[in-house]
């Protein structure tokens, strides 16, 4: 696979690993946050932690849209699915996420019309081919995904397709990073920046992290070599005492982002005054809502949504894990009450969530590594 396999070259990976070990000051402990859940997943999927020296610690960030979605939003969305002639469409990621009365997949098994779509345009297609039904697309995602939802809504409006709406849960990454940096118990040395979000927003929005907070940011791709190279770039900055925003993922991320995508978002969305994040609580101006000019395609404006609020189970320490204060396994519920099959907390819900990734790929691993070495 072009643009994939070359970035998994074993020879270069081991060299880059060596470079990291060379650059890391043995007398110092580095805490680097990878903001994006895609990075978290890749780090576990490729076993990259095995290549890092023990004093370079990766902290998993809040960039998992499924994990940070409060259960109340899922309940709200699913409450509409019970309406007659209603199709609930969502990405596969949402299908196993538990609401108070079950996951979308469980609703489907009970006979409700729940469909998995790969693209918001597939949901639009469902609306065209089922004119007698209403199709609601349950939209999730950060700035990578929001433009696709926006363009889909632009098309729906242009076509005058009235049996389609979007239940919008799009969130924005910068306020979440700010919330983490504002947290008093947080100590981070730098950030592996979210590469795919940056294809849309570019690299400028991270400037304040470097300038005001004095922390280096390297916008990174998702292959093993991308992530390792980003760590090299961060360690070099730290070694020189610098803090700047660098773009490791130049082959994909333009420094200025994608203007057409930003225009589409501005046309359709505006900022919500505040939005609740699972594990992090309410964060102001951290999510998108559909503008009044698209009210006819906004499920929340069109239907009466109960507006359920479900508080996170107290015992689950998702917030602390999300902020990097606790490691997944340090949570009281990890691996006992809370497992990927029966998640209690947000981070166990999605395979991108740091707890699920840790559980699936890392849990029980120390003995395993020793075994593999023999």
């Amino acid at each position, binding site marked *: *696979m072009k643009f*994939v396999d070359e970035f*998994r070259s*074993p020879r270069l*990976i*081991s060299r880059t*690993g060596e470079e990291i070990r060379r650059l890391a000051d043995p007398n110092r402990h580095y805490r680097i946050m990878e903001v994006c*859940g*895609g990075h978290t997943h890749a780090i*576990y*999927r*490729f*076993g*990259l932690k*095995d*290549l890092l020296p023990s004093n370079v610690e990766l902290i998993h960030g809040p960039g*998992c*849209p*499924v994990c940070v979605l409060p259960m109340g939003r899922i309940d709200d969305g699913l409450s509409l699915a019970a309406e007659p002639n209603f199709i609930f469409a969502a*990405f*596969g*990621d949402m*299908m*196993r996420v538990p609401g108070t009365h079950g996951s979308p*997949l*469980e609703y*489907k*098994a009970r006979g409700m019309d729940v*469909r*998995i*779509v*790969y*693209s918001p345009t*597939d949901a639009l297609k469902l609306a065209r081919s089922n004119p007698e039904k209403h199709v609601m697309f349950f939209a*999730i*995602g950060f700035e990578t*995904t929001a433009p696709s939802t926006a363009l889909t809504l632009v098309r729906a409006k242009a076509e005058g397709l009235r049996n389609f709406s979007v239940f919008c849960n799009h969130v924005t990454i910068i306020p979440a990073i700010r919330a983490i940096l504002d947290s008093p118990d947080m100590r981070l040395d730098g950030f592996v920046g979210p590469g795919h979000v940056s294809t849309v927003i570019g690299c400028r929005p991270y400037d304040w992290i470097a300038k005001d907070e004095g922390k280096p940011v390297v916008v990174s791709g998702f292959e*093993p070599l991308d992530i390792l190279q980003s760590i090299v770039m961060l360690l070099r900055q730290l070694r020189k005492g610098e803090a700047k925003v660098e773009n490791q993922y130049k082959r994909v991320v333009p420094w200025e982002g994608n203007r057409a995508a930003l225009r589409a978002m501005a046309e359709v969305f505006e900022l919500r005054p505040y939005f609740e994040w699972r594990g992090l609580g309410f964060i102001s101006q951290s999510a998108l809502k559909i503008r009044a000019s698209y009210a006819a395609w906004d499920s929340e404006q069109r239907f009466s949504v109960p507006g359920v609020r479900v508080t996170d189970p107290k015992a689950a320490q998702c917030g602390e894990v999300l902020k990097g204060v606790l490691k997944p396994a340090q949570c009281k519920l990890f691996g006992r009450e809370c497992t*990927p*099959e029966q998640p209690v907390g947000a981070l166990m819900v*999605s*395979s*991108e969530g740091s707890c699920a990734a840790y559980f*699936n*790929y*890392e*849990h*029980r*691993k120390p*003995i*395993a*590594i*020793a*075994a*593999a070495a*023999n």
Partner: protein
Amino acid sequence: MATPATKIRFREPQIEMAHGAGGKASRRLVEGLFAPILFGAGQGPLGDAAHIQINGTRIAMTTDSFVVKPLRFPGGSIGELAINGTVNDLAVSGAKAEALVVTFVLEAGLPTDILEAEVRAMADAAEKAGVVIAGGDTKVVEHGKADHMYVTTTGIGRLLSGVEISPGSVRPGDKVLLSGPIGDHGITILLARGDLDLEADLRSDTRSVLPLVQALVREAGKGVRWMRDPTRGGVATSLNELARDCGHGIVICEEKIPVRDSVRGACELLGLDPLHIANEGQFLAIVSAELADTALRALRATPGGEEAEMIGQICEQPAGAVLVTTLYGGTRLVDMLVGDPLPRIC
């Protein structure tokens, strides 16, 4: 017989789709509800087929139901799956299928030509696999109470001589063999459903694996400890079941696992792990270290086994788990699948 004292460990209030998907939930249902009531205590690990004795003759017996959407897909159809699936379950338990009986559950309104095509597909597959269809039964349910048609096949087989299959015989140092590329069936079905709007030149791998099993047993039977066809839940689920049953660890090397380009492409695109994707014409074998090379040669020399690989080995640790290693030294645990593989975007 079940007594009120039988301890039931299955506590879920209702049956969900995941209970049929071949992963952990399926296992909980079987081990927590069916096994304690139906088989009582003292039941060993649940294999692909039961071995029973009638008048001193040991035979293997198994049953499987087939529910697939769409009924026809590139490379096969529900009829072929129904024959090959049961033939394969017997084969990997070390038996050659001799006779099958078939049950059809048909939805009222099913066009006859669709049914006829499937019956013909079954006859062809049975002939190819060298098995007799000895009888059957039909039920018709109201329109809307089934999805076109379901097929159940129950088969008996004669045990192959010179092989004894048991997870208990698996030892650290034994090798893990895989008969060919994985994921073809599961990805073909996923694409054939059409919801994802993806196209690829890909065919289901549905086939009888008996000729490969026979070659393996003929050349290296004494070294063969365990076999399994990794259907629902894929290679990851089958190996996790073995790891749990034998109590050892299984370490497999990612680069050694054969995966076709288009299966890989679809998996990358949809965020799936090929190790979790269903197969209908491959099998895994655990073979003693001494006979592993002979076994691999035997598989590769058999038509349809050219792409067989030795993908890993049994280790003492991680006990009860499966570890994947990469060429550059990264490692990860790979668990059983929870439910069906779902495409993801994040």
